[in-house]
């Protein structure tokens, strides 16, 4: 795990020296001792609202690791459940804004799980009574959660939680979407969407006022290319188990089902003025005006810093002056290589210009992990900005 001082990245990214925390030593031994299994493939990183804890999702082994963000020391490690599929993975675990729980997308287990959290006392409990089996459940409308016609592959990809901490927008690998009340026990579906309404492989979520942006993407052999963005309404009483399927309908902001497209993650600029959506297949960033949902720019990232940056995740600096993006490596370990192969693994530093409408690629803070055969294995994916105050 690489931790850079934010100011260093803004001013001298190429020479900035990161603090490196070797998860293969302390954290791995910690998880092995607690769960009897080694954590494998640290894929996503999130933090609670108070920035006291980092939460790392291990996509190959299904572990969720909690670290003290200040000391970098592990404080809890939980291995999630084996699903009816016989598998378990954690693609992403996402903390609720009110800090009472972490929602867990157990991808190939096809489970939606919840870890109840109390950060001050380092208490983290996997709540078995809360989980939903997305492969076998029935929706409030009496429909099979997973079916060839509606939602053919219910591996949950990314949980996105709204500011109320109640509504979890859960993207699905095969298309379709569930909105889940994350506070109830068991958690319950309060809205269902089919694959024709919400396409596959979504992962981004960003709330701007009374709407939640959600995407669809490519990145799989079954769905090579896709870049869609939807806006879902938010507000009291909008979502109810009594609603029929696909209600309320999302607004389609854009839909580009074209060669090389692969929308993945997003971030809002200062004051939520624009939404940036990274297209890792085409190496640019969509800029969407959140006032009218129009694409107002596409920021090209190819240039002297990188010929194939492959931007994956985005995160804004606290004062809004810079955007950071994780850049994939030449031997990507996740997503299909046709879109996830990059040439400059590390973190890209973008200077935000024109009030968030544009950017200049300033530099790349590189990662490297060359194996005994001289092959570069580094592959950046997770990204987060932590306030130190």
């Amino acid at each position, binding site marked *: 795990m690489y931790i850079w001082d934010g100011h260093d990245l803004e001013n001298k990214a190429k020479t900035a020296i990161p603090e490196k925390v070797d*998860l293969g030593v302390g954290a791995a031994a910690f998880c092995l001792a607690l769960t009897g299994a080694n954590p494998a493939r640290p894929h996503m990183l999130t933090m609670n609202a108070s920035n006291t804890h980092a939460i790392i999702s291990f*996509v*190959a082994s299904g572990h969720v690791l909690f670290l003290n963000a200040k000391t970098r020391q592990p404080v809890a490690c939980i291995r999630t459940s084996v699903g009816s599929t016989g598998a378990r993975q954690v693609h992403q675990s996402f903390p609720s804004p009110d800090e009472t729980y972490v929602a867990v997308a157990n991808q190939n287990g096809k489970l939606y799980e919840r870890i109840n959290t109390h950060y001050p006392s380092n208490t983290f409990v996997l709540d078995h009574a809360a989980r939903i089996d997305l492969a076998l459940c029935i929706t409030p409308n009496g429909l099979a959660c997973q079916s060839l016609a509606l939602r053919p592959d219910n591996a949950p990809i990314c949980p996105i939680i709204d500011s109320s901490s109640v509504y979890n927008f859960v993207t699905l690998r095969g298309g379709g979407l569930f909105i889940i009340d994350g506070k109830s026990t068991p958690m319950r579906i309060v809205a269902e969407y089919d694959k024709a309404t919400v396409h596959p492989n979504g992962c981004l979520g960003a709330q701007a006022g009374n709407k939640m942006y959600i995407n669809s993407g490519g990145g799989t052999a079954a769905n090579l290319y896709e870049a869609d963005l939807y806006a879902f309404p938010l507000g009291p009483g909008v979502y109810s188990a009594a609603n029929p399927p696909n209600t309320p309908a999302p607004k389609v902001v854009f839909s580009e089902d074209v060669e090389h497209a692969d929308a993945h993650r997003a971030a809002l600029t200062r004051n939520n003025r624009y939404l940036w959506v990274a297209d890792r297949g085409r190496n640019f960033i969509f800029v969407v005006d959140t006032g009218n949902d129009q694409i107002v720019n596409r920021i090209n990232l190819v240039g002297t810093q990188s010929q194939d940056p492959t931007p994956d995740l985005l995160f804004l600096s606290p004062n809004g002056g810079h955007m950071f993006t994780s850049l994939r490596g030449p031997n990507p370990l996740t997503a299909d290589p046709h879109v996830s192969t990059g040439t400059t693994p590390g973190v890209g530093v973008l200077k935000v210009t024109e009030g968030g409408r544009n950017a200049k690629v300033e530099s790349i*803070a590189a990662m490297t992990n060359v194996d005994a055969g001289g092959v570069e294995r580094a592959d*950046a994916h997770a990204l987060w900005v932590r*306030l130190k105050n």
Partner: protein
Amino acid sequence: MKLLLAAFLLTGAAWTAGNDKYEVWSIDQSKLARQDLRRNRVYLGWA
């Protein structure tokens, strides 16, 4: 008036400086992947 202006500028400077203290975290997911490949390689699907 000058005192008010100075207080305003100082407050603004403190806010800016405080806001600047942050870290950027990222993970190279390749290292532990080698353990995974040896010990329990599983189908990842999309990620």
